């Protein structure tokens, strides 16, 4: 086992990885950009190192800076978390060259799974069903048109080097094909430095399910599927396990396929195989060569700490569990809490969190990167926390999630919690009738009118100020008729103003 682990990430995932690593007696080294000088993840580490400017390219994505930090802090291993450098084969290779253990798959397996066409071909060779499409990059609009005519509209352009849903473009009609081809190429080039596209048949009303796999040099374990169909613009918003759309026999086929497929790629450590479910059939979608955002739901239903297994596999200590020992209890669900305003078309809402209070109780887990006083910078992903609940069955899980959303107070930035509240009320969701475009098809965000209990209180304050003529009188109010005891007011005011950012404005008497 290594002694010093550098966690090359920020926010909730850096904190989550540090939690397990420290329990394993590993010394944790964090990194931070200039924008994250005051970030919460720094406090979760044994020590932290500055790695550059606020832009990701100058810090969390800067390979030389991250490696320098690892050397300066005498790290012997690096955990990349998700995003940033986690699926960058160059980074994994550089780590190996510098004598650092990379907590993730071997670089060649990562490169293979990151190249979408290569991954499709490998899976097809192993007998895994793949979505109808082409296994080469499309050189011209004419070639794309010919392929689309053959497999039938609607079709989906995908970036060969893509990931995270970026660079995908759906085409419904031949007339739209040329424009979509050009725009998807430019998006792919801008995001991945590679304009290559391929094409798949677009499946309407498909479910997105995925299987978490752990592989060490001897053994492999596949976990019960996660259902990730609730998405907006190909970004997952809610995940749950098990899927309400997968029965026992399909489940065992999915798990078997995922383990076999990843092993066929020469894969080791934690990885996920994504599938689309359509008309009772499943097809391979892609491989995620990293720990995933939604990994906690798998942890809750199985009791397995996936980060612990990742670290053990990387250190050569191997898996602690086998497929036959794996058990599963109940139903878990995760809502991603993003600093985005669902009422204003999910407009990013960076800023300072003036008040923060988490729901509590059994079966409620929060993986958060923020607290009262935290600044949510505009430079990074909008995910600030994950609300994860676990109960005996799906119905109770939905109830507990609803209650937890109501109890979750985040003020100072807008979040998508009102979206989750609305989603969990929808009949389709409650019935487990889920598909990848349901958020758009059901116009779930369009029906939102209010943001929740706190914003309603702001509205009440505004109404009171207008009704009593305070607004018309101007910007400041005269102090009049203190009907609350003066001492109480003085006390409150001191507590409100005295403690700087660390003091919650909410006060209980």
């Amino acid at each position, binding site marked *: 086992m290594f002694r010093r682990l550098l966690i090359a990430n920020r926010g909730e995932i850096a904190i989550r990885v540090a939690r397990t690593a420290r329990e394993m007696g590993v010394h944790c080294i964090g990194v931070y950009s200039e924008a994250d000088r005051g970030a919460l993840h720094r406090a979760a580490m044994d020590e932290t190192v500055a790695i550059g400017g606020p832009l990701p390219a100058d810090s969390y994505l800067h390979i030389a800076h991250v490696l320098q930090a690892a050397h300066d802090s005498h790290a012997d291993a690096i955990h990349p978390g998700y995003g940033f450098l986690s699926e960058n084969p160059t980074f994994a290779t550089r780590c190996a060259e510098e004598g650092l253990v990379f907590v993730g798959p071997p670089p060649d397996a990562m490169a293979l799974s990151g190249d979408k066409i290569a991954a499709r071909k490998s899976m097809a060779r192993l007998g895994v069903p793949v979505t109808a499409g082409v296994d080469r990059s499309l050189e011209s609009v004419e070639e794309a048109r010919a392929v689309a005519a053959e497999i039938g509209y609607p079709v989906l352009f995908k970036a060969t080097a893509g990931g995270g849903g970026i660079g995908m473009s759906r085409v419904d009609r031949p007339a739209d094909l040329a424009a979509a081809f050009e725009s998807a190429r430019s998006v792919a080039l801008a995001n991945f430095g590679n304009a290559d596209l391929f094409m798949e048949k677009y499946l309407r009303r498909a479910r997105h399910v995925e299987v978490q796999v752990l592989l060490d040099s001897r053994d492999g374990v596949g976990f019960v599927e996660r259902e990730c169909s609730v998405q907006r613009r190909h970004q997952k918003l809610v995940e749950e396990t098990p899927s309400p759309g997968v029965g026992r026999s399909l489940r065992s086929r999915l798990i078997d396929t995922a383990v076999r497929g990843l092993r066929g790629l020469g894969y080791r450590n934690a990885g996920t195989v994504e599938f689309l479910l359509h008309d009772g059939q499943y097809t391979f979608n892609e491989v995620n060569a990293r720990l995933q955002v939604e990994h906690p739901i798998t942890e809750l239903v199985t009791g397995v700490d996936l980060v612990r297994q990742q670290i053990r596999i990387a250190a050569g200590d191997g898996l602690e569990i086998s497929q036959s020992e794996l058990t599963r209890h109940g139903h878990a669900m995760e809502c991603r809490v993003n600093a985005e305003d669902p009422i204003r078309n999910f407009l990013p809402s960076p800023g300072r969190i003036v008040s923060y209070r988490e729901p509590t109780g059994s079966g409620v887990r929060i993986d958060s990167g923020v607290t009262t006083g935290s600044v949510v910078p505009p430079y990074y992903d909008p995910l600030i926390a994950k609300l994860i609940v676990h109960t005996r069955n799906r119905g109770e899980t939905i109830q507990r999630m609803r209650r937890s959303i109501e109890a979750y107070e985040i003020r100072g930035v807008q979040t998508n919690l009102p979206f989750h509240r609305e989603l969990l009320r929808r009949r389709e969701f409650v019935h487990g009738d889920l598909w990848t475009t349901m958020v758009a098809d059901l116009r779930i965000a369009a029906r939102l009118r209010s943001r929740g209990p706190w914003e309603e209180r702001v509205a009440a*304050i505004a109404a009171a100020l207008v009704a009593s003529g305070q607004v018309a009188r101007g910007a400041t109010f005269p102090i009049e008729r203190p009907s609350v005891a003066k001492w109480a007011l003085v006390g409150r*005011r001191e507590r409100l103003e005295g403690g700087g950012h660390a003091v919650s404005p909410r006060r209980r008497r």
Partner: protein
Amino acid sequence: MRFRLDVDGERREIEVEPIAGGFVIRIDGATYRARARPHADFVDVRIGAKQYRLRVQGNEAILGDEVHRLRIADVSEERGAGIEGRPTGKGAVVDVRSSMPGRVVRVAVAAGTHVRRGQTLVILEAMKMQNEIPAPGDGVVRQVAVAEGETITADRVVASIELGAPAAS
């Protein structure tokens, strides 16, 4: 009536429209219908099924067992004339502001550019999402106040536009 309301350091753009028996309150796109009854020491406000009794003293509002620090600014009587409001009148110069903090990834116009309503002036990136800031009406760009690569705060003036018919293009 429009104003800016700061509650515990959190700022909101508020628009209040009187209707029969109460108000419609709009906060950044959310809408609430409220009834308000002022008394000598407090105001009773009803929104939906919820009842709020508020005491406003000095710069504090006391609501139940909580105290909130308030600040009001930029009170205006006009409706829809504020920051994101629809501009009126030919020749009027309007400031176009950013609705979120972020990094300017592209400035698509320069002083003197003729623009049409909805045309992209500036592309702002925050949290890996790009947002286009559009022209609020047809006109001519008088000034561009931001540069590519610059990181700006919410509500910052990015450009000003003199309204009028754009040149035929």
